């Protein structure tokens, strides 16, 4: 071997140090530690990996070279949403999320990691205020991984094994729910009105029975509109002893009633809008909110941090109600607890503290008004149907281009060349809706942005 490999990430590569350590242990060389592995299981030769980029400068040049091939929506006039939204991320959120102390911690004890316990307790506490509930968990992997376990919780609470899910549920989330609940829990769908997007209450009533553990719907719905009859849906569920489980967008709750106000027993959702970058869908975390009821708390599949006194009258914290993670006496399934998305919980806490009640109100107002403004403007374009479904909207709506004789793919390619990310193409996932796109507007989309979009659309559609 030419030069001994001494990498800055591996301090004890220094041969003299290794020699001293080996001497103290009393073995000749490192190979002896691997004698327990039979030869036929050993790797022959070197792993087939590219040569290392040893200098930091070379690595930086290489990786940034690859990243340069990306064209981030965040740098453009972006109208993509549909579950991952281009909200503004406050600088303080980035600052705290990048702090070494939080970033590189893992499972420290309530003493040396007091900070993360308090920060996550506060996150849960602020979410509880936003959702008007008493209990919120430490974040799950993502919003879908909050919706599916919430339904599973509902089954354990009610002792039933069937759930009714709105057909208007986000398609990817529905896929996660089905995959997660299979095979013990049966997932049935209930229909909606394809004009208003609202739940078909007759269909729901017909499908509800004393076997139903939960009725699940999303508000605002995946396609942007509000379900205005939440109270009625919850009431129908309750009549049959089922729980009402509602998905919501926390960014909407500065101006909108939290689902509990219209009868939700469990509220779930995604906190990406609360100060977390889009990361191509890689920055996600989910929440489940519930009332202060032991039956609910004991069925939580994720961690809960409780507050406790110390011997010196400080605020202390620890895992609360840990027993619940075992459902030993039940015939239904156990769930598991592992690494999830704590850092994003801390970040969302920072976001809520910065926003306060007034900031959250302004955020909601921004989304609703900008969306209505865009809707009004786009509705005026020839051949464009906007909205294609629904009546009242939060921060996105469906636009149908069938009357223009152009595909969404074509329109979006044209928009892209003008620095605009057009709305999400729905034509593959919702073939019944024809050439439709989901346009999303956050507080970042100024009047100028929207006018620019409409102007460019006008040109593209008339070309």
């Amino acid at each position, binding site marked *: 071997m030419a030069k001994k490999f001494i990498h800055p990430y591996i301090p004890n590569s220094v041969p003299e140090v290794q020699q001293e350590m080996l001497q103290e242990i009393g073995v000749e060389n490192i190979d002896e530690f691997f004698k327990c592995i039979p030869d036929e299981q050993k790797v022959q030769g070197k792993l087939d990996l590219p040569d290392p980029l040893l200098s930091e400068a070379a690595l930086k040049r290489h990786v940034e070279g690859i990243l340069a091939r990306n064209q981030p929506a965040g740098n453009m006039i972006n109208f993509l949403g549909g579950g991952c939204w281009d909200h503004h991320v406050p600088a303080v959120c980035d600052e705290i999320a990048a702090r070494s102390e939080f970033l590189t911690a893992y*499972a420290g*004890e*309530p003493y040396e990691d007091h900070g993360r316990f308090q920060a996550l307790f506060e996150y849960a506490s602020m979410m509880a205020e936003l959702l008007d509930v008493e209990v919120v968990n430490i974040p799950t992997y993502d919003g879908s991984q909050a919706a599916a376990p919430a339904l599973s919780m509902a089954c354990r609470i009610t002792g039933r094994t069937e759930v009714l899910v709105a057909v208007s549920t986000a398609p990817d989330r529905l896929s996660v729910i089905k995959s997660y609940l299979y095979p013990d829990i049966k997932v049935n769908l209930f229909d909606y009105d394809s004009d208003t997007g609202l739940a078909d209450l007759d269909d729901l009533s017909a499908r509800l029975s004393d076997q139903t553990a939960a009725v699940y719907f999303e508000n605002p719905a995946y396609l942007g509109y509000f379900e205005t009859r939440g109270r009625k849906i919850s009431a129908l569920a309750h009549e049959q002893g089922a729980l009402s489980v509602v998905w919501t967008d926390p960014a909407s709750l500065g101006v909108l009633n939290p689902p509990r106000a219209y009868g939700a027993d469990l509220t779930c959702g995604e906190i990406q809008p609360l100060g977390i970058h889009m990361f191509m869908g890689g920055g996600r975390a989910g929440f489940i909110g519930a009332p202060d009821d032991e039956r609910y708390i004991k069925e939580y599949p994720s961690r809960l941090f409780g507050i406790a006194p110390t011997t010196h009258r400080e605020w202390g914290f*620890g*895992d609360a109600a*840990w*027993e619940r*993670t*075992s*459902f*030993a*006496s*039940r*015939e239904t399934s156990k769930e598991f*607890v592992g690494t999830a998305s704590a850092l994003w919980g801390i970040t969302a806490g920072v976001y809520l503290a910065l926003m306060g009640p007034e900031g959250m109100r302004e955020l909601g107002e921004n989304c609703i008004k900008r969306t209505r403004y865009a809707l009004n403007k786009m509705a005026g374009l020839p051949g464009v149907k906007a909205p294609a479904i629904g009546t009242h909207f939060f921060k996105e709506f469906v636009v149908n281009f069938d009357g223009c004789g152009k595909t969404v793919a074509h329109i979006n390619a044209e928009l892209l060349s003008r620095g605009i990310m057009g709305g999400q193409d729905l034509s593959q996932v919702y073939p019944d809706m024809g050439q439709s796109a989901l346009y999303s507007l956050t507080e970042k989309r100024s009047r100028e942005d929207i006018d620019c979009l409409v102007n460019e659309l006008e040109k593209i559609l008339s070309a």
Partner: protein
Amino acid sequence: MFRLGLIINPVAGMGGPLGLKGTDGEEILELVLKKGALPQAPSRAAHVLKALSQEKDKICLLTCPGPMGADTASQCSMPFETIPLEINQKTLPEDTRRAAKMLQESSVDLLLFVGGDGTARDIGAAVGERQLCLGVPAGVKMHSSVFALSPHHAAEIALGLIKGRRPQPRLAEIMDIDEEAFRADQLRARLFGYLPVPGSQRGLQVLKAGSSASEKAKQQAIAAFFVEEMDPNRFYLIGPGTTTRAILQALGQIGTLLGVDALQDGKIMGKDINENDCLAFLDQAGFEQATIVVTPIGGQGFILGRGNQQLSAEVVRRVSKKQILVVATPDKLQLLRGSPFRLDTGDPELDRQLCGIYRVLTGYRESAYYRAEL
């Protein structure tokens, strides 16, 4: 105020140093005293009381006169009341029983007793399963699992209760051996009953350890799995223990805690049956149609021969190893700290044949395969 009862068996453990293996029985005691043995229990009791004295403002200590408590308590700067008990000069088992009864009637929150297996038996006989107790180990024979690991641990558990912790009580086995046989170097242990003791105290490490559902819930989970797998045509001999009793409870049957019950098609066919009954049932059912269900007894991992002697060598010999099913909660298995199950049917050759791997039901749809060795 926390009402703490204390009984010291002053003669407990005296035989140990003399190689006498216990002091149960009056003649033995005479012998011990004549040989000049020194009491072990009072110093162990003092150790506990000294540790508890840091919380003495919160404790109302009730104890027995003279060597059964008061003598020691008065040396430990701990205020106490003495119950009006007349005791024999040589403190006999009946003194322990009467003392336990009186303390129970004075509604103590915890009855602390200092002694060995014999003492535990006396306490159990007097208060049954209705008084929270904790043993401070001071005897020669320590087969029961009602004892704390050491006086130090006993004090720690008691302090937890005094400070307001209320762990779920757990029924712990009272085991004792035939003293006569024991002195002749033969070990024959028997299950004499159960005493409620404070459940395990949760330290921070357990906080994160995952499942800690109550022992009872875990036993019910095992029972549910057993019932699901149960073959209505099979014949089951259900051994003693709380885990096996949960099976019968799940079937709505009332079994015996200390005895062997015969079960078929979800119904008890014979209750608290002896060795001969077992043999008769086996003959009637056909050996291949029978399964023996046991749980490890006494924390030492014995699955046969200790506490379930009704399932004698003669009985066990009629079935194959595969027809012996073990039930045990994961906690109980883990308490063995990796040691194998043990066998003591009284027939060394049979024990040898029974060594090997056993199927163990450990939860609902959860099982383990576990080794038994000599």
